[in-house]
């Protein structure tokens, strides 16, 4: 994880549409069992594009300073 932001996934709200996975510029996400997961390869740059396009508000960044 880079920077002071952290990616949070709200499992129960994810409907597995795959939009965040497809448009992640670093291919840092994957679908497993119909839910989105962050891959373990440390590719996430916390750009927030997943949060902007998720129609279900199931993936988002939080500021760790708070």
């Amino acid at each position, binding site marked *: 994880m880079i920077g002071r932001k952290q990616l949070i996934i*709200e499992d129960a709200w994810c*409907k*597995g549409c795959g*939009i965040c996975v497809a448009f992640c510029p670093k291919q840092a996400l994957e679908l497993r069992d119909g839910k989105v997961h962050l891959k373990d390869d440390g590719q996430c740059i916390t750009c927030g594009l997943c*949060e902007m*396009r998720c*129609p*279900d*508000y199931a993936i988002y960044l939080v500021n760790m300073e708070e």
Partner: protein
Amino acid sequence: MPSELIHRYMRIDHLPQIWCPGCGNGTIMRDVAAAIQELIDDPEKDINRDNIVIVSGIGCSSRAAGYLDFNSIHTTHGRAIAFATGIKFANPKLNVIVLTGDGDCSAIGGNHLIHAARRNMGLTVIAFNNNIYGMTGGQYSPTTPDGDVATTAPFGNVDRPFDIANLASGAGASFSARGDVYHVRETIDIIKEAIQHKGFSLVDVYSVCPTYYGRKNHKGSAVDMLRWQKENLIPTARYYSMPEEERAGKKLIGILSYNDYPEYTEEYAKLVKAYRKKK
């Protein structure tokens, strides 16, 4: 615990929302919340949460009034703009935002749309345009492209589609724009402009309906439909820098028409004042 934006502006006890996986409506509803948040948080803008009213009609899109945590009213089919007109007239200080669908605003409520545009009533109308009647089972709507299939057009739709942004502009809307669900940042900025515009503003936001429109017309998954938007809907700056021949078949995302006609409730108040003086 959802993100701060969702926590602040949505009724989280009603979430997750009921829309299908990949439905663009959730993204548009977030765009509206994000646009409002940015306006409220900007000390230079005079937008106050208590002055915002969300009005919706009937259809998939119109459930948004139930999820957004503002003064909100979920009205009858096609009549959202009519209710909104009444609210604006009763208290012209309010920022009245209508969330409606392509069928709700251009078929059942088509007359309300064109006359509110003609009068330049100070409303902001956000049309969640998914090219189909989703809630009732995939019947073709006024924005279903000709040749496309729907449950009521199993051999292809013969009707020519409306372009809602151009329809509103033709009817006299003083602000008409187009957004989509792929270009999120651009669409939020367009919605912000629309909310701040004094007269009638309409934003035709192209949604995606993978369940009824996409599946019936072999458009692929929600991801494929968003890729289509990425390639065929072009933000303003890039659109105008493209050579003419490359623009063929592509549509502009941005503000399509704009003018500063006087706003209706202000003109009406002037009339009342002038008449009272004479008496």
